[in-house]
């Protein structure tokens, strides 16, 4: 088992396993990954130094160590993370114990399971392409085992060819295989997972560095026109309760129950499809304000869309929204929520509100005054504000005057409440990058935003965005926050926008568009999508699906086998065909081989007729006899024969 043959197979196998497990570095505990890498490295060394392979006692110890590691990370051995880790460790330990060909097959099969487990963490187009490539290497390992002499190139080529030929049938099965949702009890939920995203509370004063993430939250495809940038507010959780520092959701009936009164809508309607990425929370970010939506969605008393299904997978929703609406009268509960203050405001605050006519003018006027104040005074928008642990609102308003959307929104709402105007903080996303290739909008974590909502007589809840007063470019222009130096403040520079319009950005958009289609048509192809898609072809039930599955697979098989066999039959007797070509070349010289004449006799006749070419005739005839009737002949003989026939040319001097 230490032949060079086996060594080559092992190198093949170990490399592909390294490639399969590598992306898991982000998914499994570092201790386990370290353990696996160590074992893999050990096995690599042992390819050349087999004496270093562990004995059974050491192997037992390693197995126990692996189990201890596993149990220290997980309480039970079910679920995605624990299952993945279990398979990776099993794969690693089995590597140290490869003795026969059977073991190699077992390891390869385990590697396929680990490859599938990668998809439980990441379903991007890139990952799929990567796994496909690694599958080629894994299959090439199997080809190598089954070859007598291993030629790396041939093995890889054969494996790739088989995989390419397998794709059409795989796609057909993918489309037609009935999708049934697994029963609830079979899904192992992971509880201790933290994800970046919008949270159900905010504490602006305690954040000194707002990280921006380019992680995708959702995509929107509009059926008709797209709303202008300043109307692209994607409504999320409403934070109405404050303790002076922290803003959070009220756990009242408004939150639990559904919308009390449906707003009346006016103006342009926008129809769109929202493709939400997997989320921790069941929030769905509809364009302010959603009007029509279908089954799993519901509108809370805070006019926030929530889904009643599992939000931990991608989902698609069809929604219609109106940017202009009137929510009408305020209920008692809403009023209480929207005017809640933790304690009596300080004199400094009261004085400030009085100064801006908060107590003696109409709400609209006070709002205008306050926004002007933000704009005129030395307020700055920054992602790295100073810490404001004590009295954050007062410090922000009177001392630091630096902050991001949460600071402005919370300060604004607080001042409104001091002036007895019902107000609350709304969080969500603002804007989104338009992908011209795929014609859709991409909204990322960096687009997270917080704004204020004020209730005004006869108008209902009205959106006010104090950040827009300070940094209008944040709202009206699409600023890519990544391009800004995080330490500096945002300054609007038109050149920056132009710089983004380069080819890199276009490439990026192309990729994002492909990814969108991938998510939409492949990753998100669930039972609903399947039913929709298939019904356009008139396939409605299980029976029809199975029928078409059979028909299409049979059809592809016929085409494929016709292709494979045709190639073979064409070359069924190339030796004879070449010889016939040679005879045809002699025809102009009056040499015609009769049916009864053997090749040898014919050659004798030809040699007499063409003495100058006797050598060539002799050689070709000898090769022909050898190839056609001889016991043993090699590929070289055939090539030489073919070349000689091709080169042969009648030179008749008359």
């Amino acid at each position, binding site marked *: 088992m230490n032949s060079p043959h086996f060594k080559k197979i092992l190198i093949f196998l170990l490399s592909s396993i390294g490639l399969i497990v590598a992306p898991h570095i982000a998914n499994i505990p570092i201790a386990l990954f370290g353990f696996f890498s160590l074992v893999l490295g050990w096995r690599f060394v042992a390819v050349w130094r087999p004496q270093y392979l562990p004995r059974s006692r050491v192997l037992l110890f390693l197995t126990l160590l692996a189990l201890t590691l596993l149990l220290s990370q997980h309480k039970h051995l079910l679920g995605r993370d624990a299952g993945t880790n279990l398979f990776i460790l099993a794969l690693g330990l089995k590597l140290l114990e490869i003795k026969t060909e059977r073991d190699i097959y077992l390891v390869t099969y385990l590697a396929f399971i680990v490859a599938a487990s990668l998809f439980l963490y990441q379903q991007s187009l890139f990952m799929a392409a990567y796994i496909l490539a690694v599958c080629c290497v894994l299959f090439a390992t199997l080809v190598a085992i089954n070859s007598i002499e291993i030629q790396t190139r041939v093995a890889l080529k054969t494996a790739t060819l088989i995989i390419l030929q397998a794709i059409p049938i795989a796609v057909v099965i993918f489309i037609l295989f009935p999708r049934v949702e697994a029963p609830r009890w079979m899904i192992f939920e992971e509880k201790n997972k933290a994800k970046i995203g919008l949270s159900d509370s905010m504490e602006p004063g305690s954040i000194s560095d707002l990280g921006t993430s380019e992680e995708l939250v959702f995509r929107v495809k509009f059926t008709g026109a797209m709303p202008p940038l300043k109307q692209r507010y994607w409504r999320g959780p409403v934070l109405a309760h404050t303790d002076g520092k922290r803003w959070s959701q009220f756990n009242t009936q408004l939150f639990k129950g559904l919308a009390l009164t449906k707003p009346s809508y006016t103006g342009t309607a926008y129809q769109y499809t929202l493709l939400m990425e997997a989320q921790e929370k069941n929030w769905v970010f509809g364009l302010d304000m959603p009007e029509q939506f279908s089954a799993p969605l519901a509108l809370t008393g805070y006019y926030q869309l929530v889904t009643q299904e599992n939000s931990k997978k991608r989902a698609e929703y069809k929604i219609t929204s109106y940017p202009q609406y009137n929510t009408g009268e305020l209920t008692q509960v809403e009023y209480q929520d929207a005017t809640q203050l933790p304690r009596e405001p300080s004199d400094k605050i009261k004085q400030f509100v009085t100064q801006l006519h908060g107590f003696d003018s109409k709400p609209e006027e006070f709002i205008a005054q306050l926004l002007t104040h933000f704009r005129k005074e030395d307020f700055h928008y920054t992602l790295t504000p100073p810490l404001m642990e004590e009295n954050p609102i007062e410090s922000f308003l009177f001392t630091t005057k630096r902050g991001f959307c949460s600071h402005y929104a919370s300060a604004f709402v607080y001042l409104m409440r001091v002036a007895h105007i019902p107000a609350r903080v709304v969080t969500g996303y603002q804007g989104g990058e338009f992908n011209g290739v795929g014609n859709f909008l991409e909204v990322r974590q960096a687009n997270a935003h917080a704004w204020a909502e004020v209730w005004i007589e006869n108008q209902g809840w009205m959106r006010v965005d104090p950040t827009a007063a300070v940094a209008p470019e944040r709202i009206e222009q699409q600023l890519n926050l990544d391009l800004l130096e995080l330490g500096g403040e945002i300054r609007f520079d038109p050149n920056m926008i132009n710089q983004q319009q380069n080819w890199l950005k276009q490439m990026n958009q192309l990729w994002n568009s492909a990814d969108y289609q991938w998510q939409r048509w492949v990753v998100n192809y669930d039972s609903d999508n399947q039913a929709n898609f298939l019904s356009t072809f008139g396939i409605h039930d299980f029976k029809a699906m199975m029928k078409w599955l059979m028909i299409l697979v049979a059809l592809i098989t016929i085409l494929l086998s016709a292709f494979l066999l045709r190639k073979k039959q064409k*070359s069924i007797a190339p030796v004879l065909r070449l010889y016939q070509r040679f005879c045809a070349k002699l025809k102009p010289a009056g040499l015609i081989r009769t049916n009864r004449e053997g090749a040898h006799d014919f050659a004798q006749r030809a040699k007499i007729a063409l003495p100058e070419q006797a050598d060539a005739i002799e050689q070709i005839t000898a090769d022909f006899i050898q190839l056609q009737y001889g016991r043993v002949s090699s590929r070289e003989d055939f090539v030489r024969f073919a070349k000689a026939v091709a080169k042969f040319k009648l030179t008749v001097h008359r």
Partner: protein
Amino acid sequence: MSRLPFKLRWSVPNFYTRKALNSESITLTVRRIGIVPSKRGFGFMLLMILLVLIAFVYNNNLAYLLTFLLASVFFITILHTYNSLAGLVLKDGQCKNVFLGEAAGFDIHIHNPTAVERFNLQIQLEKTENFTLAAHSKIAITLYKIAQKRGWQTIGKVTISTSYPLGLFYAWSPIRFDSKALVYPKPATIEIPFPETPLADAEQGVNQKKGADDFYGLQEYQAGDSIKHIHWKAFAKGQGLYSKQYSGANNATEVWLHYDYAAGHDTEQRLSQLCRWVIDAERADIRYGLVLPNLKIMPDRGSAHYRQCLEALALL
């Protein structure tokens, strides 16, 4: 289109008994090739079931896609495995005659007239031979079979098989060739002198008899010398054991190997003894004749005679 492999025959009634016509080559086609999943193939099926369960529980479309890709690979491997056997042309070749208990060698000529290179082929008679075959090339392989019985030994069933490319399927084709080898009796191990048969006296031709009478000298007795030629008078005088030598170097000795005089309690043992005598006689360059119950071969020597005698022994 009528030869498509999806019509692969898994069990054809006369699949095993298909014979090559005399001296005709056999091309491996759909009708001759059988394909079944190998043990590894069944393991692969288990893998696919596990993967589809994972995909189902996590409702993960890419895991589904991977599973279906593997299933599709599994399916089309049938075609590829078929293709790594199909199109080969087999023909039987020469075979040498052997003694009982030795391995009879049968030549099989395998020709790959196609452009498909064969990376792993097995041909099996009693032992399995692995070989590769490049496109448009021929190979001759000698297969051995231990001769178990005297007489004609047919090659019987030769199986050519492959599990290339992935080892998930096993394609094989059992072929019966007509080529046969003649099996001579096993030469006896015990050395017994040539028999002194009365027949030798009675039947010796006139010429030979005359020649044999021309006494020309004495020679010290050697094992195998005819008892009849011992110079008893000299022996009686105490001068030692001498054999009378007769003139005519070629006809110096001539033995008749007679079935009835061979030791043994059954036919096989007697033939075995006769076989040993034939070998010894040929080696000693003695003229020998063979008498069997149904056949008599006049004394002679040389390889043609030798073979004639052995064949007569083999076919008795």
